[in-house]
């Protein structure tokens, strides 16, 4: 993703992960920002 800051990028990916990529009831995820 492209974002203005690391925090903004992390927030964007976390939102997508929570809403679509992972089901928090049964799955966890880890975000790495390079």
């Amino acid at each position, binding site marked *: 993703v492209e974002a203005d800051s690391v925090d903004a990028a992390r927030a964007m990916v976390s939102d997508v992960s929570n809403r679509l990529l992972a089901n928090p009831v*049964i799955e966890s995820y880890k975000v790495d920002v390079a």
Partner: protein
Amino acid sequence: MKFAIVVFPGSNCDHDAYHATTAVIGQQAELIWHKETDLKGADAVILPGGFAHGDYLRTGAIARFSPIMKSVEAFAAAGGPVVGFCNGFQILLEAGLLEGAMLRNRSLQYRCEHVHVRVERADTPWTSLCPPGLVMRIPIAHCEGNYFADPSVIDRLEKNGQVVFRYVSAAGETTDEANPNGSLHNIAGICNERRNVVALMPHPERACEPVLGSGDGKVVLDSVVASLRAGVPVAAR
């Protein structure tokens, strides 16, 4: 009364539900494409079985974002009766209209067979005609039907009487052998706290006529007709 049957790309039990609601129980029904936003005056909504969006990512994960789902959510919020059969159950879980999630079957195999399911609660619009402890013989056909939720959620569902269907033996006993997928507490179906949103992994719509091997599931559809006639709130249309 009129049923709305939502059709997602990959639904494959939509016509079973259409046949059961029209030819078998003599009601009106309309197939509604998932990209539509209007439930077209329906009195009850069915999310049918199948493989919406090819089950990509997770079962129901993409379907929950279909435009029609906002209307389904509004319909449910207004008290309208909504039911999910199999993939419909998975979609309702992903949409957050019901609690919990589905894991792969503990056998890691797709299971396609008739099972026995005990109706635990008659105080939902979809089970209102069921006598206490009714055991139905109806089919399952799924790979992700292993119901899971956090222990606190399971406890609350049990305490609130939100476990509506449970896998049992033919004699009605809750045994591990009768559990086809590993679901916690042998849970086959649940409802929301308000009790108007109900879902189960087995397919009552595919067991509405003896020629199909069982007519036991017909009572689910008969129940919602009776409930609506008796005055279950009809959602804002």
